[in-house]
């Protein structure tokens, strides 16, 4: 690298501009591919962006903290976007109210199923105790999941990895799974996505249908509460 280029790199790598720009570019590429494949759930834009960005950070020897100086502006948008979920929810409130009992039952049963099946399967496969406890809250949104993991003796940073993994898994497999078992009702599909895979599942639901997105947002919010109450109780019973 010649001196001029070196100087530009030193300058750019210390400003938030670079991290922000590469995040947007990686996402745009991922999204274009996703759109080109007619929103096929297997072509997940988050996954594509990660696969583009991680090697880039490794090659340029950029620590995550420096990348995040720029990427934090995108990360910050998670908050206002979550608040804005109130709008589709308001639009479909009449439908929510009508199926409130069904939603309540599905939420509690779905929440318990997600916890028990994950912990049970990992236990059968011989995962460590710490992994099992970190796995229990994996279907809820990151801050809540990490809080639960800490409370029950899991490893919060491992839980953070598992939450993202579950979110992407649900977003990728949701459409196929729900088609397979013939769940065609958009309300039911939305609730399923929100219960199994929080915000990332909700993002996928919005790509497919706004009604499904509204119900997924609702399920995501309520599941945070349900899981926070249920997981410590279930763990107390199981151990």
């Amino acid at each position, binding site marked *: 690298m010649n001196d001029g280029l070196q100087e530009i790199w030193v300058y750019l790598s210390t400003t938030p501009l670079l991290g922000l720009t590469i995040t947007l570019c990686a996402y745009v590429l991922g999204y274009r591919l996703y759109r080109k494949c007619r929103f096929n759930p297997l072509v*997940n*834009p*988050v*996954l594509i*962006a*990660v696969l583009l*960005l991680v090697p880039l*950070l490794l090659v340029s020897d950029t620590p*995550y903290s420096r990348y*995040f100086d720029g990427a*934090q502006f995108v*990360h910050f948008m*998670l908050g*206002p976007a*979550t*608040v804005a979920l*109130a*709008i589709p*929810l*308001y639009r479909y*409130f009449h439908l929510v109210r009508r*199926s409130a*009992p069904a*939603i309540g*039952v*599905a939420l509690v049963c*779905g*929440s318990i*199923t*997600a916890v028990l*099946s*994950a*912990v049970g*399967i990992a236990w059968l*496969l011989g995962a460590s105790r710490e992994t099992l406890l970190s*796995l229990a809250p994996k279907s809820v949104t990151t801050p809540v999941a990490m809080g639960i993991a800490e409370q029950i003796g899991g*490893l919060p*940073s*491992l839980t*953070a*990895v*598992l939450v*993202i*993994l*579950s979110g992407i*898994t*649900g977003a990728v497999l949701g459409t196929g799974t729900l088609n397979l078992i013939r769940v065609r*009702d958009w309300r*039911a599909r939305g609730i*399923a996505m929100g*219960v*199994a895979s929080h915000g990332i599942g*909700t*993002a996928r639901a919005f790509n497919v249908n706004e009604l499904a997105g509204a119900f997924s*947002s609702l*399920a995501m919010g309520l599941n*945070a*509460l349900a899981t*926070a*109450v249920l997981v410590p109780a279930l763990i107390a019973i199981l151990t």
Partner: protein
Amino acid sequence: MVFWIAVVLGCQLAGELTATLTGLPVPGPVLGMVLLFGYLVFRGELPQSLDSLAGALLRHLYLYFVPAAVGVTAHFALVRSQLVSIVIAVVVSSAIALAVAGLLVQALSRNTEQKDAV
């Protein structure tokens, strides 16, 4: 539009404060969503400019998860030692939870659907 940006951020702030003060196990933005929803129900209509702001915010929800997902790869070593059992557990349990929740909502809300003949 700027007014509604302030309202949305204000709801988030109020939500964060409520979550911290009450110790509720729900993230601040989710409480902010509840607040904004309550306001809309109270108001009884959806303002046009809030609707377009929400449309813009929600069009690319996936984007906002990219920085956190990149961060996760830094902790990937935590998963590596038990990768196979973790991946199987996450994949199978996600599919089961999707099925249970989806089938239940569909089965239980079928009655109301027929009553209204939608």
